[in-house]
């Protein structure tokens, strides 16, 4: 068989002095096809347990469901999908070749390109893809009931999200770690490439803005939260100085110190929030807080990385892995009971107070991260492909890493579902409908007509007191509701009810930490993308060390997301309700772009009979986002359609009214008129760009079909000089080969000259 990319036969180029660099295909396949009775029994048990768990979730009509069934359903499905579906993708579509050196090997520089142990890289990749997204989306989608969200998170990741991450990682690795934008330009031509770059840039702005909105909503009027999150800045600065001047390279040590300081900041926040000066100083309204975040965003993005971003990164990686392990353990041990219907009336009628719109399509844009997240394509085509040791490991890292993020989303959903439903709605409905008071919230929630929900103002006051807040009414954005859920689960494991306020602020703190890191890094990345694009017209901008240019580019990017953020906090409708769908749409459109690029690449490889593996999630993401955008643009229902809302408020203003719907003043009405116009235009822009990218990808596929395969965009074949197993646990053949390599001296693995 001749190699598609016209590379020499690997056997001829392999070093005869070294052991084989791959398990021979026939040995590996024989191993995979061997099904001893114990293996059959194990997989049958997994399938059976998963089936039972799904049946319990789908058919249970009892009062409550134990959270452990969510864990079983998800984990069993992940295992089966990983073992069987991702293997199918590997065999039919990816076709990795371990005899081929990865960029980490042939481009090794000991810095950006460096061979990394697969288990370490798994942790590293997971820490880079998981953030606040999978924690927030499922909380908001819980209003549609527990079943739709669970099915989408689990089935979506298996068929869409993990497929995207895996393929982008592999294709980028075959291209020396090229970015998604560069791959789009290579595969889709000038028009498709440019559309992808502009879409990525604007999507990044939207995502950063809405993440920032989540933080602002969580911290507004919470002196405890503001104090402890503000303290992360001096803590990070201290860590930065420590690493730069005192003990360079002691990363784990400084992270442990930083973690202890963070805990002290949380405890200190509780004390400060009790004092009069603390309340006076740290109780900040949404608008000034948003301006604070914008100013912080600019300063953070122009400061040197070592001072703020690098230490923050260490801290959030440390917190991320620690907290997620802790939450998983807590859910399994505490096993909270979940009440509420499988599917709520809001899913059908689209009148939910948390996010507007019916299940189809809005469930699929509300939960983006955790099921399918386009943003991951930027990570999978960024750092990770430059660190992979062997080609076959991309399945474990790309597909497996995304399964773990999906599990985080399931845990967030469980945490949100475990809180009292009345409290959940009181926290997530905008102040425009609850009035911001416990009495108003109780009246509003009881008026929703939910069976089994009878909320009293005392319950709301009691919960607020338990978590150490003045009020928990209308704390929209998902983060506070998740924090209450998490606090309830964690207090069952450590500390009891007295610890609830600590755990609540612990959760707020780590979400804010992830988000502020993402805001900082997102602004920087967007700035470089902007400079790169503008440099085509003004060459001076290519020089990224040019101070004035970088300040201008940073100011433009911060200004862009800052404007959307201010729009969100001043929106009389509550911001999250109208803007969160835009976040999901943007993220899914990016996923559609990434999948379109993968589709074009796979078609160039000539794999037409297996293209459905990519076409299926691509078609779904395209239908969801285009339909959701269509509704956002054309729906005549003001709560859903941006222009319908725009027209309703404009007409009201024209009729001389001074209050309309949820807006109590003329200024608020004007704000709605302005915001809906901008949001509507953004929707049109996104959907147009995505359609351009998808169409150019389809054209490229048709061209490949006519012309035959052509894989010229891959880097040339370089024979590998090292070996490592593919998955977490090595197989027998892999262990034997690893053993042979154990005796090879290190320097014969290094290629001479580079």
């Amino acid at each position, binding site marked *: 068989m001749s190699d598609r990319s016209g590379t020499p036969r690997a056997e001829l180029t392999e070093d005869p002095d070294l052991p084989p660099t791959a398990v021979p295909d026939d040995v590996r396949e024989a191993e995979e096809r061997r099904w001893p009775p114990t293996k059959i029994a194990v997989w049958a048990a997994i399938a059976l347990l998963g089936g039972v768990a799904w049946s319990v979730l789908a058919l249970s009509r009892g009062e409550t469901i134990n959270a452990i069934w969510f864990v079983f359903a998800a984990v069993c499905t992940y295992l089966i999908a990983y073992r069987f579906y991702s293997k199918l993708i590997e065999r039919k579509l990816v076709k990795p070749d371990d005899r081929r050196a990865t960029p980490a090997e042939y481009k*090794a*520089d*000991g*810095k*950006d390109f*460096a061979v*990394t*142990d697969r*288990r*370490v890289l798994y*942790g*590293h990749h997971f*820490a*880079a*893809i*998981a*953030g*606040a997204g999978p924690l927030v989306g499922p909380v908001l989608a819980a209003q549609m009931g527990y079943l739709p969200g669970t099915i989408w998170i689990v089935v979506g990741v298996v068929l869409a999200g993990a497929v995207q991450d895996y393929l982008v990682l592999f294709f980028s690795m075959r291209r020396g770690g090229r970015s998604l934008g560069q791959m789009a330009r290579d595969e889709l031509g000038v028009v498709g490439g440019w559309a992808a770059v502009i879409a990525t840039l604007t999507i*990044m702005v939207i*995502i950063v803005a809405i993440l920032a909105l989540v933080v602002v909503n969580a911290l507004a009027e919470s002196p405890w939260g503001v104090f402890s999150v503000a303290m992360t800045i001096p803590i990070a600065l201290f860590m930065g100085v420590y690493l*730069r001047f005192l003990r*360079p*390279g*002691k*990363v*784990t040590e400084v992270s442990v110190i930083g973690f202890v300081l963070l805990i002290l900041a949380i405890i200190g926040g509780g004390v400060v929030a009790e004092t009069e000066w603390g309340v006076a100083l740290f109780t900040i309204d949404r608008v000034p807080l948003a301006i604070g975040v914008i100013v912080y965003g600019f300063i953070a993005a122009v400061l*040197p*990385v*070592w001072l703020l*971003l*690098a230490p923050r*990164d*260490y801290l*959030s*990686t*440390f917190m991320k*892995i620690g907290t997620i392990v802790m939450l998983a353990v807590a859910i399994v041990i505490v096993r909270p009971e979940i009440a509420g219907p499988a599917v709520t009336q809001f899913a059908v009628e689209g009148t939910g107070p948390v996010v507007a719109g019916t299940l189809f399509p809005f469930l699929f844009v509300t939960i983006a*991260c955790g099921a399918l*997240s386009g*943003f991951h394509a*930027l*990570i999978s085509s*960024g*750092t990770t492909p430059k660190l992979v040791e062997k080609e076959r490991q991309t399945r474990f890292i790309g597909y497996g890493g995304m399964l773990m993020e999906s599990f985080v989303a399931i845990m967030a959903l469980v945490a949100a579902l475990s809180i009292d439903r009345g409290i959940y709605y009181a926290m997530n409905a905008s102040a425009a409908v609850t009035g911001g008071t416990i009495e108003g919230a109780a009246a509003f929630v009881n008026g929703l007509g939910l069976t089994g929900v009878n909320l009293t103002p005392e319950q709301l006051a009691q919960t607020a007191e338990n978590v150490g807040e003045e009020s928990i009414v209308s704390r929209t954005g998902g983060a506070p509701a998740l924090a209450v859920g998490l606090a309830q689960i964690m207090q069952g494991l450590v500390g009891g009810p007295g610890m609830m306020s600590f755990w609540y602020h612990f959760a707020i703190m780590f979400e804010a930490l*992830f988000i502020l*890191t*993402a805001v900082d*890094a*997102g602004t*920087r*990345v967007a700035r*470089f993308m902007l400079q790169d694009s503008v440099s085509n017209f003004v060459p001076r901008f290519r020089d*990224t*060390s040019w101070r004035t240019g970088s300040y201008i580019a940073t100011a433009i990017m911060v200004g862009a997301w800052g404007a959307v953020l201010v729009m969100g906090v001043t929106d009389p409708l509550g911001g999250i309700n109208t803007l969160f769908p835009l976040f999901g749409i943007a993220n899914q459109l990016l996923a559609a772009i990434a999948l379109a690029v993968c589709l074009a690449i796979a078609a160039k490889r000539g794999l037409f009979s297996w293209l459905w593996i990519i076409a299926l999630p691509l078609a779904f993401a395209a239908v969801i986002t285009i339909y959701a955008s269509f509704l956002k643009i054309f729906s005549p229902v003001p709560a859903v359609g941006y222009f319908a809302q725009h027209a309703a408020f404009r007409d009201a203003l024209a009729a001389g009214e001074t209050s309309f719907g949820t807006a109590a003043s003329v200024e608020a009405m004007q704000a709605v008129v302005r915001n809906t116009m901008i949001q509507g235009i953004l929707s049109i822009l996104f959907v147009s760009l995505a359609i351009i990218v998808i169409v150019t990808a389809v054209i490229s596929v048709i061209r490949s079909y006519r012309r035959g395969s052509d894989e010229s965009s891959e880097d040339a074949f370089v024979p590998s000089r090292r070996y490592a197993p593919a998955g977490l646990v090595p197989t027998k053949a892999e262990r034997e080969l690893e053993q042979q390599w154990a005796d090879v001296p*290190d*320097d014969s693995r*290094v290629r*001479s*000259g*580079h």
Partner: protein
Amino acid sequence: MTVLEGLARGARGVAWFVKGVMGEDAYDKYLAHHTATHPGVPPMTAKQFWRDRTDRQDANPGARCC
């Protein structure tokens, strides 16, 4: 003493994993690479390496996900 040995091995494994994920082994990896490919050229010191690492990040920050 096998239980103790097992525990010690497990603890070493966790430490290795955490340090790897945090990137603490970056200098060791650089040093190994440098001595193998550029024998005779003095490598950067640890301090120089870590400075260089964050300074390179200034020009290429890399996205963090949402």
